[in-house]
């Protein structure tokens, strides 16, 4: 509303064309300087001649021209001149479809830019008139109300979908794998949410606890014959102990310093796994890890003597999907337990103390809250859920190596928490679907799929700087909100 009023206050802004052209030129130059190294060269293997450069000058030039006009159109639209934006957008779209651009990628991107510019032009044209501005304001307000009202149903809807997903006709092996992957990250995100979102302790080495859980199960199962169900709590407790172990030395650290130490801890765990060959088999990893069984029935076509495979036990046709569906439900239940415990803890004194610690540690101390214990419990709880998730990961993959527990995993889990909105359980789910699901979905884009990942991150940070779900509900109300809004 404020923006619309500001626009109305100065309806006929004359655009400073020389400045706009100069700005567009500078942007194109910048793009050229960056793009020449990223797009301009390509190394190709020429057999005998070895690796050689291929120069893609045309690509760079086309990209810079597109960027020049795109920037010009954006400046014009922002300055209240929608016509140039519409014309340039339409022109780019036509050029992308009509001319033969040097690569498919450029064609796709140029068309998208054209469409975006046309939309931007229409948007500013709509807002130029008073009636249009009112329509926009009303629409955005209604959209806000609708999303706010629909929000509580979103969780229930997603949960229902997650439960029925394995029985839907399109749920083949690929879909189930993706579902398991997303749920694993949801669970890890929920676990890290306790440490980062609630207690406000920036942990960059979270994957270490995931690794501890995975290796605990792998070693207990392959060397000591433990079953998945027996190893699950043991691995969780072991990971929680590692959480306390990490917690002790870093108690006095805050913010950046804590982040650096936890980053180091993550690397230490990975390097120990690489080098302690006697226990972990080092870089070769541990293979043949038994998968989870249901009441002692394995998911194999033929069971070892004395056991009945799952499909015979239930009198079904053997299907490799049974194992995936079973694993899917295990991770679904584990994730839901993580969520239930976190939601419950938030309403207990410990959870409130975590949040208070995030808000102001000095004030906590002045109220008699022991910051040491409070931080350690947060680390331990977060680590325990990572340990559970790690056990599940080992049982699902049936092979683990230190390769799986590199820093980028910690970074992805942290991005899920931050992009979802610190402390928001629903935000973690949405961010996990977006950040894990999207790149998998766009696997067809090949090398450009990480672009989708990056684009999602940039868009969220631009439009939702506090995360997808920035709203925080108090853990207790004096005046319950049903009825009138406070």
């Amino acid at each position, binding site marked *: 509303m404020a923006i619309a009023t500001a626009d109305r206050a100065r309806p006929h802004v004359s655009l400073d064309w020389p400045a706009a052209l100069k700005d567009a030129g500078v942007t194109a130059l910048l793009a050229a300087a960056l793009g020449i190294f990223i797009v301009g060269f390509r190394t190709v293997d020429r057999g005998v001649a070895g690796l050689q450069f291929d120069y893609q000058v045309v690509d760079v030039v086309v990209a810079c021209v597109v960027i020049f006009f795109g920037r010009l159109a954006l400046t014009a639209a922002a300055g209240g001149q929608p016509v140039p934006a519409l014309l340039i957008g339409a022109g780019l779209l036509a050029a992308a479809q009509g001319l033969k651009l040097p690569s498919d990628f450029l064609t796709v991107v140029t068309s998208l830019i054209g469409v975006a510019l046309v939309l931007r032009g229409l948007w500013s044209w709509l807002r130029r008139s008073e009636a249009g501005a009112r329509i926009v304001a009303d629409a955005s307000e209604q959209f806000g109300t609708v999303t706010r009202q629909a929000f509580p149903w979103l969780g229930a809807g997603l949960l229902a979908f997650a439960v029925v997903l394995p029985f839907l006709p399109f749920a083949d092996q690929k879909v189930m794998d993706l579902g398991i992957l997303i749920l694993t990250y949801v669970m890890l995100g929920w676990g890290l949410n306790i440490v980062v979102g609630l207690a406000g302790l920036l942990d960059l080495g979270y994957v270490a606890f995931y690794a501890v859980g995975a290796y605990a199960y792998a070693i207990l199962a392959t060397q000591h014959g433990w079953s998945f169900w027996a190893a699950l709590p043991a691995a969780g407790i072991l990971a929680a102990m590692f959480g306390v172990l990490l917690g002790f030395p870093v108690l006095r650290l805050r913010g950046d310093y804590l982040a650096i130490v936890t980053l180091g801890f993550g690397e230490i765990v990975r390097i120990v796994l690489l080098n302690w060959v006697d226990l972990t088999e080092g870089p070769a990893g541990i293979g043949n890890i038994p998968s989870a069984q249901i009441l002692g029935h394995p998911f194999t076509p033929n069971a070892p003597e004395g056991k009945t495979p799952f499909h015979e036990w239930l009198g079904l046709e053997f299907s490799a999907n049974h194992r995936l569906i079973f694993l899917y439900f295990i991770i679904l239940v584990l994730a839901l337990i993580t969520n239930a*415990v976190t939601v*419950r*803890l938030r309403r*207990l*004194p*410990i959870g*409130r*103390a975590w*949040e*208070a610690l*995030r*808000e*102001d540690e*000095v*004030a*906590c*101390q*002045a*109220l*008699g*809250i*022991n*910051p040491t214990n409070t931080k350690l*419990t947060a680390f331990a709880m977060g680590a325990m859920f990572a340990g559970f998730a790690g056990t599940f990961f080992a049982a699902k993959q049936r092979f683990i190596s230190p390769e799986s527990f590199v820093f980028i995993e910690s970074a992805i889990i942290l991005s899920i928490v931050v992009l979802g909105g610190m402390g928001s359980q629903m935000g973690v789910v949405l961010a996990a679907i977006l950040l894990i699901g999207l790149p998998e979905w766009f696997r067809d884009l090949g090398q450009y799929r990480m672009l989708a990942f990056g684009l999602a991150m940039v868009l969220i940070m631009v439009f939702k700087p506090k995360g997808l779900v920035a709203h*925080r509900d*108090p*853990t*207790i*109300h*004096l*005046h319950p*909100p049903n009825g009138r809004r*406070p």
Partner: protein
Amino acid sequence: MNQPLIQVDHLTMRFGGLVAVDDVSFAASHRQITAIIGPNGAGKTTVFNCITGFYRPTVGRLALHHDGREYLLERMAGHHIAGRARVARTFQNIRLFPGMSVLENLLVAQHNRLMLASGYTFLGIFGAASYRHAEARALDKARAWLDRIGLTPHADRQAGELPYGLQRRLEIARAMCTDPLLLCLDEPAAGLNPRESAELNQLLVSVRETERIGVLLIEHDMSVVMAISDHIIVLDYGRKIADGTPAQVRADPAVIRAYLGEVEEGEASHG
């Protein structure tokens, strides 16, 4: 006079070569408001930080007495000073939990009791009745304080959204929710308008009357200090230069020279 609530002896705090507090001794009693005043940089907040455990004094003995027990604050960990010796404080620049609701701020203040009642979370997570009762009692206490500071209608708002004057009062209520024996207020009237400061005076006087606790007060606003203090301690350059009732302090030539010198005429007429 019976034993004072807190007895501060020879308190000295050095930061490197700087002596922020130099051999200060004083006592504060139950049911009294003791004000510490002095020009900027006189070491008032440093005295507070020593009493509440944020600094460890270089020299000195800080003894808090209650129920026949003696707590030596200079030896206790910061959170035990609040939790066991029951000394609560507020801060010069307000330190609420801004992202949490007003009610949550008051519940966090009752953390230790609730934590015990929730069996260190293990009973609480299964919703044990003992915890539910403890939480209901904590809510009653929070509600009573909300009524007292006039924040009941704002209970579910984020603390950080409240106007400045309400945040000040909320911080005092939060400190009171810890059931303190000694309440240390660091410039509670800073930034308040005259009406808000008068309400603050009423609140502090009512706390002294009803709660049987000692109040230590750092304040620049002489209308607050002179109106409600029972006992004033004046610091200048880290040393105590006067100690007595408001009337005595106002008449003390050392105080007039060091502190009230320039504003004497204006203050004396309505102080």
